């Protein structure tokens, strides 16, 4: 029980930190601050540009923060 509690706290602490890193990159790529990363904006990052199509799940031509974190967050 104690171990599960420690594990739970550990995960709770770790997950936001890891998601924050993808979020950090997302914010840096979102040049016009509209909450989306377009294909043009993604060109600043080779990995994101290369995987853009895979990450764009709804195929609307841009990555929402959720799509971005799902693809690039740990």
């Amino acid at each position, binding site marked *: 029980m104690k171990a599960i509690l420690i594990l739970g706290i550990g995960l709770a602490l770790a997950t936001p930190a890891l998601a924050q*890193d*993808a979020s*950090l*990159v997302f914010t*840096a*790529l979102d040049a016009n601050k509209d909450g989306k990363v377009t294909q043009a904006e993604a060109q*600043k*990052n*080779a*990995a*994101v540009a*290369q*995987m853009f199509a895979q990450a764009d799940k709804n195929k609307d031509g841009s990555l929402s923060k959720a799509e971005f974190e799902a*693809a*690039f*967050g*740990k």
Partner: protein
Amino acid sequence: MFKKSLMILTAASLLAGASTETVLAQSNFGGRASSYGDGYTDGYRRGWDDFRMKREYSERAPQDRNYNYQPVPDNSRYYGDQRMSGDPNQRWQQQYQRQYTYQDDSYYRECRTKVDPGGIIAGALIGGLLGNALGKGGGRGGATIAGVVVGGALGGALTKNMDCEDRSYAYNTYYDGFNAGRTGVPYQWRNPRSGNYGEFRVNDYYNDRVGFRCANFAQEIYIKGRPQTATGRACQQPDGTWAIVG
């Protein structure tokens, strides 16, 4: 008649001796001797000279007793594959104690929320910042381009006296320099706002004793007009990230 034969014999001996010396000195014994560098052939040649001059090794001047043996940097192959096999993470730990992550990186720690004119965060040039992307083979031109981690005391020496803006520019030179695979090529940066500038280059690449790719680098920067140099060693961690290790 006897004198002429003796002369021919002597000449033939000298020629044979000279050619044997040349052949033996150049012999690489199936490619291995050449790996010992010039010291091996140099030592052999000196031994041959001793023999021809009927001189004992101990009669040489002390400075001539040095065979200049220099082991090749990548000598791991002489131990078979034992040192280079097994879990890369374990091998790294044994050799360098720990793996470095983006959280060790001084730019990430101190500058990630500041103005980033070099696009370090946007480009995720810090290794592991977009871990999944690297894991899936992201990179420039279809090739996996590994990020850098400039962390710890060793990394600190590289970015000493640089502010976050300077580092934002300089990181691009580290990233490009390590990944280009070219030696002696200068990668330059300049901060137009402060006038600070610098140059980074990889002097040579080699494989360490457990098989990781490493690079000896040098940097020269000018902060407020004052020159500052740094040299060091970086190796590619199991995840491909370049980390400063020496």
